[in-house]
């Protein structure tokens, strides 16, 4: 049983069926990427896990306990970073963390110690101004610090990198990566490169369902070797090749990409090339990035 189990969950807003029979499970100590386009239902799913929204049907378990809407006891296992983190602007980071610590029932000494550690982790140590004067990136860091305060088993981050510049994004990702030893991290995004960088498991949500789900390697493996790229020595060879393989696409002057090729297809191509005495500079199987997979999933 994973730290998070979602089984057959549905959710509609009026007549808009946002989540249709969603099921997946997140094992412990993973960095779990939750990918989907804007409006796919990532935030909705996370809010249901937190008991902030009521699922129309289906069940959600956190650490083996069933999630209930409203008064949500399972939240004691969870740290949550909302998509637009907002904290009491009139407080300083330390004051805010002290309040959160008191609410979770931590001892004051522990709160102090943990605050120091976390503010250092997120790079806000020594920042003593009120939160209302924070930039977006600082609020995002503050959000991670408060989410990690009670050493949660599960850290849920809703698009933590979306509103940030590349440097800010990298820093946040590094922070998330660094905490994976103690806590399972789930984070949603529509930025695929972020996901490829730190996730070991991913799930694609599309059209209210999980379209793909597995380890990063498995998912990449689904399409491994499906495309090839041939780089010819001469332009005329490329042109000649295209006459025989009309499905090829000229990507550059001497380069041709062929999609969906099995291993037999590749051997056949190599045989063709050797028969026609065509030398190539390079022949390569293409490993698709998540980008291609994503587009494929989305296009159906």
């Amino acid at each position, binding site marked *: 049983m994973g730290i998070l189990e979602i089984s057959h969950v549905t959710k509609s807003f009026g007549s808009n069926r946002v989540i249709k029979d969603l099921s997946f499970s997140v094992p412990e100590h993973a960095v779990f990427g939750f990918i989907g386009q804007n409006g796919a239902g990532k935030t909705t799913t996370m809010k249901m896990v937190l008991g902030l*929204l009521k699922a129309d049907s289906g069940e959600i378990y956190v650490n083996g306990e069933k999630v209930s809407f*409203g008064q949500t006891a399972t*939240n004691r296992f*969870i740290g949550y970073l909302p998509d*637009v983190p907002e*904290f009491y602007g009139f407080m300083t980071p330390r004051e805010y963390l002290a*309040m*959160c610590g008191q*609410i979770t*029932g931590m001892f004051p000494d522990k709160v102090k110690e943990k605050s120091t550690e976390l503010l250092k982790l997120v790079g806000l140590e020594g920042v003593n101004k009120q939160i209302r004067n924070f930039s977006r990136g600082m609020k995002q860091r503050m959000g991670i610090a408060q989410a990690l305060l009670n050493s949660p088993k599960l850290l849920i981050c809703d698009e933590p990198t979306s509103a940030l510049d590349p440097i800010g994004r990298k820093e946040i990702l590094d922070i998330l990566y660094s905490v994976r030893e103690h806590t399972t991290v789930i984070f949603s995004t529509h930025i695929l490169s972020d996901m490829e960088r730190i996730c070991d498991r991913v799930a694609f949500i599309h059209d209210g369902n999980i379209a793909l789900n597995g380890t990063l390697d498995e998912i990449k493996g689904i399409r491994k070797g499906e495309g090839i790229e041939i780089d010819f020595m001469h332009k005329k060879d490329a042109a000649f090749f295209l006459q025989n393989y009309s499905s090829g696409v000229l990507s550059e002057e001497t380069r041709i990409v062929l999609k969906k090729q099995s291993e037999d297809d590749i051997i056949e191509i190599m045989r063709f090339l050797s028969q026609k005495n065509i030398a190539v500079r390079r022949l390569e199987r293409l490993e698709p990035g998540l980008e291609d997979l994503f587009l494929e999933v989305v296009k159906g």
Partner: protein
Amino acid sequence: MKEKRFQLLILSPLKRTWGIKMKQWTAFIKKEYLEQLRTGKLLVLLILFCLFGIMNPAIAKLTPWMMEILSSQMEESGMIVTGVKVDAMTSWVQFFKNMPMALIVFMIMFSGSFTTEYQKGTLVNVVTKGMKRYKILAAKMGIMMMIWTLGCLVSFGITFGYNAFFWDNSVVHHIGFSVFCFYLLGLWLTADLILASVLCQSASAVMIVTGVMFLVSYLIGMIPVVSEYLPTYLLRSGELLTGAKSAGGYCISVAVTIFFIVLEAVLSTVIFNKRNL
């Protein structure tokens, strides 16, 4: 050594559960207090209540002078105004005339207490930290009622002090009870405001719904037979001052108002437990 073990085994779990229960309250009350303090609301309200306290005797004190100016004008047109007599009664009548204004300002100041938190999503964070929702509600209600209590005491105290200094408070009857009635009306409207806050999404909607609740009671109160069974009857507690009426006539209204405050608090809690934050 033995004592230490006793502490660890028996006292610390006790302390822990107690501690956690109390801590959530204190944490959120502290937050509310800090908010009122740092956003300057507390200061503004205190100044307001001071001004409202000073205003009543001041107006009473100025009345003869204003009358004089008026009368000299009137004499020219042939009317004669003879000596106006002011005393503590004049000042207390002003008190009951002016304080509703202070109540309205107080209500407006707190109309966004919940709704700004909904709009910003700040409560989400607190709730996902394991905060019990009823404690949020109770802390907010507690702070509002405390500030209202403090405000009433300040206004009352100042007016009372000036009145004692200039005139004599003993000419008015039931002053303590009639001010209490008005104070209780404020508590009831605070409960209304909270109920409206768990129902509505914006501060203006909260004001409108609260206004409607008041109006319903006020309009039903136009029917003479039921008027004294309603919270808005307390608005007329100023009539006690002359001593023509007995305080007993307000007891039903006081009881009904307290009942409504409790009922609305419970209702608000139930609704708040299930609302989307």
